[in-house]
């Protein structure tokens, strides 16, 4: 009797220890995130003003605003998505709906995974040699946007593929069973059901694109530009690169420290907003899919 009781006690104690450990670890991860956020906010909030986000940098980037960097980043996001979204979605549809299981699919999958593992600086170099030099786009939003697009392509492919995979097979069978072709089934049944999740993946990759520095280093980013870009063949400033510049190689690093934190804050807010937007869109489209 008493040994049984001891065993039960021991079991409960072990369970409590394990549970406590996991709880502690997950809370510290959340805590750490808050500390980082709080740090940036505290250090950066002081410089945030309407002027900061709407004016040109002044006095060797120690004063004024970061408007051109915000515009540049938005342009880069736009170009990269215009490229990566359709290409990634179609590739994923091909892989999930059309290719039969076998070595072709395995190879494509492996390649996509490998592509996702390539360091971003390598994408930068590749973008420079292909888009900037070979294709003659020069240092431009087009070259930088395409390079960023290549970088997130595996992310878009993978999230789209997961979303398609989550669509129950019974819907495909029902549609095909009515004499619909594979393409009609994909377009009218599978894709609409998967769409909310695909959109989420897209917006998460926007967050990724807006924060990348290495791929734009040799393809688009300007140290300082006195004017806004007027076409996709212009160079542009970008938030992450601007942050890098004013914290490492500005004319007066100490004087621009606050500007750097302000820039970081703006960048984080952009990423945060896109994540919130992702959630909202997913809910919105999720509802719509059910109602249609």
């Amino acid at each position, binding site marked *: 009797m008493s040994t049984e009781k001891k065993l039960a006690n021991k079991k409960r104690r072990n369970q409590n220890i394990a549970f406590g450990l996991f709880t502690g670890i997950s809370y510290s991860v959340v805590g750490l995130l808050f500390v980082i956020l709080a740090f940036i906010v505290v250090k950066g909030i002081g410089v945030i003003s309407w002027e900061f986000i709407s004016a040109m940098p002044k006095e060797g980037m120690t004063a004024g605003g970061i408007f051109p960097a915000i515009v540049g980043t938005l342009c880069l996001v736009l170009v990269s998505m215009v490229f990566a979204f359709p290409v990634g979605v179609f590739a994923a549809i091909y892989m999930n709906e059309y290719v*039969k*299981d*076998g070595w072709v699919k395995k190879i494509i999958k492996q390649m996509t995974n490998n592509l996702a593992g390539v360091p971003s600086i390598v994408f930068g170099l590749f973008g420079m040699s292909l888009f900037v030099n070979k294709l003659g786009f020069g240092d431009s939003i087009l070259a930088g946007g395409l390079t960023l697009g290549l970088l997130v392509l595996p992310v878009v492919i993978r999230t789209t593929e997961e979303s398609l995979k989550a669509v*129950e097979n*019974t*819907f*495909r*069978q*029902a*549609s*095909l*069973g*009515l*004499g*619909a*072709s594979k393409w*009609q089934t994909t377009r*009218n*049944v599978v894709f*609409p*059901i998967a769409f909310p999740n695909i959109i989420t993946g897209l917006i998460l990759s926007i967050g990724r694109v807006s924060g990348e520095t290495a791929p734009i280093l040799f393809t688009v980013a300007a140290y300082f530009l006195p004017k806004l870009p007027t076409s996709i063949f212009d160079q542009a400033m970008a938030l992450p690169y601007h942050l890098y510049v004013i914290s490492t190689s500005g004319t007066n690093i100490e004087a621009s420290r606050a500007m750097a934190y302000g820039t970081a804050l703006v960048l984080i807010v952009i990423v945060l907003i896109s994540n919130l937007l992702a959630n909202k869109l997913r809910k919105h489209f999720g509802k719509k*899919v*059910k*109602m*249609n």
Partner: protein
Amino acid sequence: MHKIVSQNVNFYYGEFQALHDISLSVKENTVTALIGPSGCGKSTYLRLLNRMNDLIDNTHMSGTITIDGNDIYDKHTNVDDLRKNVGMVFQKPNPFPKTIFENVAYGLRVNGITDKKIIEERVITSIEQVALWEEVKDKLHKSAFELSGGQQQRLCIARALAIQPSVLLMDEPTSALDPISTSKVEELIYELKKQYTIVIVTHNMQQAGRISDNTAFFYMGELIEYDKTKTIFTKPTKKQTEDYITGRFG
């Protein structure tokens, strides 16, 4: 007049042979029940009739199956046309995440019918055919997910009927339904056989007895016995059939 004729059909999932030399003919405007324990091949056989097994990688078949005299596995056969003629109802009700109306209209739209009047007419007729009209007429443009399981299944049958097939395949259509919905669907099947040739897979022996004209008993991928339902249930010739229908195994 035989509507469906299968001769020496073998079917393989990779190396595994799921069907052995099945020869079976189905008369027009009859209900044929396929019974047998799980894994006996009855669903596999059913899915050969509209080439649903084509969707599974790494499978192959031999032998011939004809519907209205046309070899459905001939390389000139258009699979989409075949499936238009051979409707299917699945085990779990699976309406699309669309409105009730659009669920039934879907088959018409993908088959190139664009005339609004024809679509509306066919949708209404099909919903009436499955005795669902009174229940849904005020919410045709609401999501099909708002219906109960039994209503959803009847909607799926209406969806299959809308494109005017001549054969209807049903893969355990009532196994996910409550008894009242089940009896509604059974009554419906009885009505439908006037116009359609129905092949139904069922686990429920009483159901096979109630609704089918002929019954085929499958066991371990072989067709053990195929006869009038009455004969199968009262004086089966094979011991395995008798053991199964009397509940000694399965």
